[in-house]
């Protein structure tokens, strides 16, 4: 099976800035693929390379096996949901959604029907006559989605589509997007800086750092078996242990990661790991206790309802040795 999108040694340099630097990626057809990374890591540039708004300075991008180097954005059968939605303010919702068919010469009645169909797909029946300015953020997001899907693209690109929504709405939209992707079977490529969003929605996640892909894998792999210190820290704020500490805990002399939820508080005497509590952060479902351990700062997630140590107390830490993940990075 050909991949929906394939990056072969792709680079995009802006003068001295290497926004994307030698990226190799394969995005399988029909998958929900997340590009995760902090701002400036190159994920959005990668998305724009697929849509054609950026041209690679090196390497090749293939969309369903076709080299896309000479194809302008309007001829790529790929559509984008923009971060700011980019709805046309002078057109009503129906005309916004029907824009794609309109520029392709689809007759008015047909494209209006298609637009209504798409609006009902995103649960906005009856909103066709409104202007984008009269809609809430969540509704605008749905219009942008309908407008991008009306062309029946081979790949749908989403650039931080949930970034402007409040938490409750964001969670509801995550479920809806996931369900929509399953139903339509279109390949979704999704850019986000929110690791929770990437882990909960995607089939596969690519973690970006400094224009390079640090790791690609299933959410479980990326979260549970980070390859580098950066991935361990960025995806779920894991404890990153230096080689010396890993060795003390019975591992090889390599960097390793230990999840805060894998650690338990124990008596300081006789514990393999012990330290002084420096800070407590209440999170609702639990409390994150930060401990100044030997050679590293360690965070422990204590579930709600359990006894908490006081700041300054000396505590020991216990964990299941199987949870200590040794990373590839030396």
């Amino acid at each position, binding site marked *: 099976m050909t991949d929906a999108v394939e990056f072969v040694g792709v680079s995009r340099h802006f003068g001295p800035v290497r926004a994307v630097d030698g990226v190799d990626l394969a995005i399988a057809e029909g998958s929900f693929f997340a590009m995760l990374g902090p701002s400036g890591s190159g994920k959005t540039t990668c998305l724009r390379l697929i849509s054609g708004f950026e041209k690679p300075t090196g390497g090749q991008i293939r969309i369903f096996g076709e080299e896309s180097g000479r194809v302008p954005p309007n001829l790529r059968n790929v559509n984008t949901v923009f971060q700011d939605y980019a709805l046309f303010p002078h057109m009503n919702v129906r005309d916004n959604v029907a824009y794609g068919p309109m520029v392709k010469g689809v007759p008015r009645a047909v494209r209006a029907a298609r637009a209504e169909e798409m609006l009902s797909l995103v649960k906005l029946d009856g909103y066709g006559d409104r202007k984008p300015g009269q809609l809430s953020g969540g509704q605008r997001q749905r219009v942008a989605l309908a407008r*991008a899907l009306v062309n029946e693209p081979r790949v749908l690109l989403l650039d931080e589509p949930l970034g402007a929504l409040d938490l409750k709405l964001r969670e509801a939209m995550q479920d809806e997007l996931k369900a929509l992707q399953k139903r339509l079977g279109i390949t979704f490529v999704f850019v986000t800086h929110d690791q929770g969003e990437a882990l909960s929605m995607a089939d596969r996640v690519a973690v970006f750092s400094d224009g390079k892909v640090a790791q690609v894998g299933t959410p479980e792999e990326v979260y549970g078996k980070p390859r580098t210190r950066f991935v361990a820290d960025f995806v779920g704020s894991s404890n990153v242990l230096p080689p010396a500490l890993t060795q003390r805990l019975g591992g090889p002399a390599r960097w390793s990661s230990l999840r805060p939820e894998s650690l338990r508080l124990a008596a300081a005497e006789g514990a393999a790991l012990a330290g002084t509590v420096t800070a407590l952060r209440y999170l609702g479902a639990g409390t994150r206790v930060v401990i100044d351990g030997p050679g590293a700062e360690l965070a422990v997630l204590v579930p709600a309802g359990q006894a908490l140590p006081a700041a300054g107390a000396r505590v020991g830490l216990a964990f299941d040795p199987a949870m200590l993940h040794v990373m590839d990075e030396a």
Partner: protein
Amino acid sequence: MMDFRPVTLPVRGPGDRLTALFWRRPNLLLVLLLAPPLLWLGVVYLGSLAALLLQSFYSIDEFSGLVVHEFTLKTYLELLRPSNFDILLRTVGMAAAVTLGCAVIAFPIAYYAARYARGRWKAAFYLGVMLPLWSSYLVKVYAWKLILSKEGIVTWATDAAGASAVLNAVLALPVIGGNSLSTSYIGTWIVFVYVWLPYMILPMQAALERVPQSMLEASADLGATRAQTLRRVILPLALPGVIAGSIFTFSLTLGDYIIPQIIGSSRLFIGQAVYTLQGTAGNIPLAAAFAVVPIAVMLVYLALAKRMGAFDAL
């Protein structure tokens, strides 16, 4: 432990007292700020406009040459006399042609400045557009008279390029042609376009600058060609700016009486008619009636623009 730091800070002087007053009565500041300009606008500006309107409903006694202070539409009927009506048609036609010319020339410049020019180039753009406004309008118009005259640089350059046949063919055109560029409607048009161009470029550039890049990308993303994006997205969104610019170029051309006097055929424009009628002829009512025409034309123009949806995106 007692904390002796004050809860309310001491008043330092009149500045604090005034700020407090304006905080307690927010409308007071608004009234103070708006009263002088509203007085100016209401009394001096609209008042004189009303006086003008009133004058246009009087008439002149043909025998004594005195103004008859009685309501009549006779003066407006005068405007429909062929010699007067020609002046109206000529002026409105020129204003429309100048506006169109300015819009066509201004768009690429404004588009470049809004979408591509950054830093130094943006400064160069503003300087380039504004620089002509720093020198006297009369100097520029007389300079153009020399440029366009029969012995001027345009004739010389077309001769040198072996294109004098083209220039002669252009000058041989009926109505808009003439003896030389400086004595033809073409010349008048060129100078009008030159003089009013900044007033079209600046609002256009401001309007184009407000069109987000992502909107153009969304249009291309959905399959639109460059031309479709221009027609369906850029122009509708920039239309308020284009209309704002065209209000300047249109109304400035309608009211100008110097350019057509210096450059062009000796036929009158509205401004010149007003100038002669209120001066030597002493026919204030007819001058007022002529002066009302540009106002009426602008109102019709704005109503049409509104109907076309020019202000929907505001």
